[in-house]
């Protein structure tokens, strides 16, 4: 039971909302979080079937691609990289929001992150799994992929650590391990809670995952230390991962790729698109799992503000890059900009700019941030814009180069589109299954948050105050 305080019982309702489920008993919170996990109605199974079908179709398309060759996709000379690499960068970008929320906000002691962290970390982990498929998909001889792994072999050949693709491989692997471990570590106490309340196969699963957690003081203390170390350690990782992905492009001398601003530009773009994706997912999950009392207006308000700020930062970096390219007036860059502004790439370019900039303006309004449908629309628009932005960078830039005879064009094929859709469906499928197996809301963190808040009287005002405890 929480610290019952007479002042709190009479707090005005707006603050009552903010006091993190003030009036609820711990047992009620446990049940409120566990019940949605057991509810698998027809809508759930329809969703799983549809997603499963899309994934299966995508796997068939991948098999087709491997059997017939990369020519089944729309690539050609000079556009050697297209939708696969675009979507790869997109997924790595999405993955950045999870760490932003759980690590950065944990260090900043922002309490509104508490109900969101697990959903965000799960988004990171699954986005990275989807991203990790693409370096395999786009290989011409995928059955030899293991040559990129450094192990002593009788070929006496070693992978090339000067290649950005090798940096990609280690960085994404590191980030995937880091975010999965982070997700799991924060999950252990809730696994113990779930273990206590369930039976059957669920009990066996949670028991195994809870690693015998009881909740002794020593255990909590160590968990806290580990989580703070994790939070600090994972921040350089997440900053470096998308920088490394951007250097896939920036280290070549391809015009418009060879730009020093790519690393921070991509990282900020990743934060922007990732936070927007997180907001979209939270709106959908809140509706689908009926978590309205855990994911409240205050959370979406704060998240929406963060998305807006990220959008403004993205605009700054985009402009810094664009200005320099336009002003320098180098011939191929000039031609590429001309194509974007007034040529055959123009529809995509204007889609990108409007879909990225309009939400920044929209999210300035509290009404938009706190109405789920409007927030969903704004953030989906952001993701469309960011995907288009990456497509323009990867596919658009390759169509022009230093020798005009080698200028090319690109048309996507069903194989590429199917595989891209497969990863979206795969992500959604993993996320849906995750929500039924793991408590979506980190219960112990919410209860911990409740300990911090009391009501205090300052003059005539009764305000909630947060205690400065770890």
């Amino acid at each position, binding site marked *: 039971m929480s610290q019952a305080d007479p002042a709190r019982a009479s707090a005005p309702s707006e603050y009552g909302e903010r006091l993190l489920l003030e009036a609820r008993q711990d047992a009620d919170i446990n049940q409120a979080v566990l019940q949605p996990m057991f509810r698998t109605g027809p809508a759930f199974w329809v969703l799983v079937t549809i997603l499963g079908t899309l994934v299966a179709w995508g796997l068939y398309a991948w098999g087709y691609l491997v059997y*017939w*060759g*990369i*020519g089944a996709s729309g*690539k*050609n*000379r*000079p*556009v*050697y*990289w297209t939708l696969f690499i675009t979507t790869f960068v997109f997924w790595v970008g999405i993955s950045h929001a999870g760490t932003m929320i759980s690590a950065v906000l944990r260090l900043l002691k922002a309490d509104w992150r508490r109900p969101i962290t697990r959903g965000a970390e799960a988004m990171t982990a699954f986005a990275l799994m989807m991203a990790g498929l693409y*370096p395999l998909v*786009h*290989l*011409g*001889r*995928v059955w*030899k*992929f293991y*040559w*990129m792994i450094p192990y002593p072999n009788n070929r006496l*050949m*070693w*992978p*090339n650590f*000067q*290649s*950005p*693709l*090798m940096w990609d*491989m280690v960085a994404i692997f590191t980030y995937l391990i880091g975010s999965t471990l982070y997700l799991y570590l924060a999950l252990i106490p809730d696994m113990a809670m779930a273990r206590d309340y369930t039976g059957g196969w669920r009990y066996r699963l949670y028991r195994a995952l809870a690693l015998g957690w009881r909740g002794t003081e020593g255990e909590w203390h160590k968990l806290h230390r580990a989580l703070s170390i994790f939070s600090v350690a994972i921040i350089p990782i997440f900053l470096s991962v998308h920088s490394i992905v951007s250097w*896939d492009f920036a*280290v*070549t*001398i*391809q015009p418009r790729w060879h730009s020093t601003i790519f690393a921070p530009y991509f990282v900020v773009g990743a934060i922007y698109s990732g936070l927007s994706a997180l907001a979209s997912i939270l709106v959908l999950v809140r509706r689908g799992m009926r978590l309205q009392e855990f994911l409240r207006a205050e959370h979406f308000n704060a998240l929406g503000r963060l998305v807006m700020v990220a959008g403004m930062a993205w605009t700054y970096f985009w402009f810094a890059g664009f200005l320099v390219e336009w002003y320098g007036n180098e011939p191929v860059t000039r031609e590429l900009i001309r194509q974007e502004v007034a040529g055959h790439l123009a529809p995509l370019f204007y889609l990108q700019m409007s879909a990225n900039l309009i939400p920044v303006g929209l999210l300035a309004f509290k009404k938009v941030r706190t109405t789920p449908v409007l927030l969903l629309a704004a953030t989906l628009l952001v993701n469309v814009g960011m995907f288009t932005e990456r497509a323009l960078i990867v596919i658009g830039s*390759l169509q022009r*180069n*230093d*020798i*005009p*005879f*080698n200028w*090319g*064009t690109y048309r996507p094929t069903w194989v590429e589109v199917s595989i891209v859709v497969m990863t979206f469906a795969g992500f959604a499928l993993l996320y849906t299954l995750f929500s039924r197996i793991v408590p979506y809301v980190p219960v112990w963190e919410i209860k911990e948050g409740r300990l911090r808040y009391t009501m205090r009287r300052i003059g005539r005002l009764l305000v909630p105050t947060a205690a400065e405890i770890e």
Partner: protein
Amino acid sequence: MAQDVKSSVEAAPRWAMIVDLDRCTGCQACVVACHAENNIPVVNEQQAAYGRWMHWIIVDRYWEGEYPNVKARFTPVMCQQCAQAPCEPVCPVFATYHNREGLNAQVYNRCIGTRFCGNACPYKVRAYNWFEPEFPSPLTEQLNPDVTVRSRGIMEKCTFCIQRIRRAELDAKAQGRQLADGEVQPACVQTCPPSALVFGDLNDPNSQVSQLARSHRSFRLLDELGTDPAVIYLKGGETNVPG
């Protein structure tokens, strides 16, 4: 193998090619010869139009003007064998590397098909096997046993006919002599009717290649990018694209 062939006193050659645009007629005999020598597959018309032709040497052609005052301007372009090749450091498995003779070597067996090198090359001379290579019936009779046939998913490009270089070097070593200038001729050089293509050792100041390289007409493609290519063009007459 290269180490065996070179005697210890002689420095490794730097193979280079001269393309004399004044002599080039755009007949594309070099393209055909290259196909024949290097087991390059044929793609159909649709694929070629989409940019998936497999030519290791191609005659870049630009049309200028309106009929009847149309001019064709053309330049044969093959892998420039850059000394500072942008395609080499980006391969994750070292499928392309720089050998001691200044050649940008492509190891077909090692390539896993990431196509990073294709993006990095500013000349876009790298050809990728988008599908399993096909050699329609009589072509299978004239496959060159000195050159491997590549499978799908492998990047390939002009190698300055390294198989001919090696054969000449081995013959010379077996006979206990040095290579003479002009003894090594890639297929395109051998075939070119007006002798617009010349091949030789740039490290030998008396070779034909070195002499032509000192010409006042010489230039290199995209020199400003700093790739230090081994293919040197000589400015041509009216029908050819200047530098």
